[in-house]
């Protein structure tokens, strides 16, 4: 009691110290009260940034395979690494976009035994990296299960109308077989049907992507375009071989300037033209970039569906050695595909290879088919 008295007495004798302590406590209390303000501000900013999202881009880059290529100076590149860098630039250069990047990498092990994650995900919004996660790709059930899960977790549900795009950068997506597409999983299958299942999950609200860019070899077949056309209004693809320097991602930077009028169709044609111009500068093999206005291609696709599916069924049932005796060709070279509607809805930019047997071929129908190799 005496001690307490003594303390109070001393407190009374040191009023300055006492008042300081009171101020400090008050300051702390007031600070803690106002601590919510920055959070609230951030939330408001976040809401504002969500409202500003005008473009939603999903980009899948396959890198689990042989993606090495050289430029004309002899420099070595890995196509998936280049595409990843390009996609990141697209994400950073679009302040009004959300960009999902999925990099499917080769399987690797730490000390031979401990598997490392073979998928990497980047999510950008308003030009800023919001999330970067590693994930496992070895899911048995659905090919794009983890990608879809990440997409749903971050996708902006915006009331405002957005321009949506789906980009796939990789090797030719097989129409049948499909084993060995992933070098790390030689028994695992990947076909157009698997991509279709993935797209069903991405677009579960049954809306179609405004633009799909299929940066692969032989993407412009009646089956591939017909199947993927259920998920996109416009598709850009290469009916023939595509050089691994791929379609230009640069054309997707600054979409606010390049797509000011919101006209996706015109933008797609411009994109195809620019890509064609760049590829023809450096590439000696053939170059083909086609833009498919899906709704306008329906009549042709319906007309050839039966004959093309029959071809696929025959090929699918063939033995492996027999499959090595078939090759891709322009559908325009096969009489059963030469219909009045063959050019409807297709804009094709084509230049033959500068050497080889096909160097005199002057045009392409924009559709790619199969034929037996003539010995």
């Amino acid at each position, binding site marked *: 009691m005496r001690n307490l008295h003594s303390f109070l007495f001393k407190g009374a004798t040191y009023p300055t110290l006492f008042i300081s302590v009171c101020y400090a406590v008050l300051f702390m209390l007031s600070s803690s009260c106002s601590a919510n303000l920055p959070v609230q501000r951030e939330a408001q900013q976040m809401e504002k940034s969500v409202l500003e999202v005008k473009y939603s881009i999903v980009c899948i880059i396959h890198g689990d395979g042989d993606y090495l*290529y050289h430029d004309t100076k002899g420099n070595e590149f890995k196509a998936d690494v280049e595409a990843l860098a390009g996609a990141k630039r697209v994400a950073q250069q679009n302040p009004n976009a959300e960009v999902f990047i999925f990099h499917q990498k080769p399987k690797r092990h730490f000390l031979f035994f401990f598997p490392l994650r073979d998928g990497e995900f980047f999510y950008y919004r308003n030009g800023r990296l919001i999330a970067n996660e590693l994930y496992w790709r070895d899911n048995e059930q659905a090919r794009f299960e983890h990608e879809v899960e990440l997409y749903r977790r971050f996708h902006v549900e915006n009331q405002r109308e957005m321009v949506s795009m789906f980009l796939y950068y990789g090797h030719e997506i097989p129409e049948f077989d499909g084993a060995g597409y992933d070098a790390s999983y030689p028994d695992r299958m990947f076909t157009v049907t698997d991509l279709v299942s993935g797209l069903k999950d991405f677009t579960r609200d049954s809306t179609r992507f405004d633009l799909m860019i299929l940066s692969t070899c032989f993407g412009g077949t009646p089956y591939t375009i017909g199947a993927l056309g259920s998920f996109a209004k416009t598709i850009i693809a290469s009916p023939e071989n595509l050089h691994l320097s791929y379609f230009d991602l640069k054309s997707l930077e600054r979409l606010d300037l390049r797509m000011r009028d919101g006209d996706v169709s015109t933008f797609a044609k411009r994109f195809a033209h620019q890509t064609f111009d760049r590829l023809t500068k450096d590439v000696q093999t053939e170059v083909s970039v086609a833009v498919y206005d899906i709704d306008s291609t329906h009549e042709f696709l319906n007309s050839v569906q039966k004959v093309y599916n029959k071809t696929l069924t025959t090929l699918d049932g063939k033995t492996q050695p027999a499959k090595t005796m078939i090759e891709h060709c322009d559908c325009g070279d096969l009489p059963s595909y030469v219909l009045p509607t063959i050019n409807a809805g297709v804009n094709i930019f084509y230049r033959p290879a500068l050497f080889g047997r096909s160097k005199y071929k002057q045009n392409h129908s924009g559709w790619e088919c199969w034929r037996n190799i003539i010995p």
Partner: protein
Amino acid sequence: MKAQITLLGIIVMMFVLAIPANAGGKGEIQKYFNDAANKVKATENVTEKRTILDESLKGMTKVLNMVQSSPLISNEDGTAIGHIKASLQEKQDELTGNNGYQRVPDTQLNNFSNYVVQSMEQAETITISLVALLLIIILVVLLV
């Protein structure tokens, strides 16, 4: 100090071993033609350019012949190798102007060397098994 060095060594080894075993792999064939293209572009002498291209095509064909006749190779690999050989033969024919091809003009030899590289980069090496590929790589290193 010794313990620290050992620990550092172990950490470095861990990172080294994390590099994928198949890094490079199929790329060796592409590098082979890219090296030839670099040599073609490095010389001004047209005859030399033709010789480099001719030898590189012949060298790879020789390797593919050996691999194709190996008992380790499956029928499917044999057929796929056959296609690559046919493609190389066509390039050789075009270089020399045989089998209905117009001879590649002297002024186009650099572009033709790029064509060979790009054509091989999109060739069907993807369908060849790992065994066949390893044989090709080993023979390229040993013989060419």
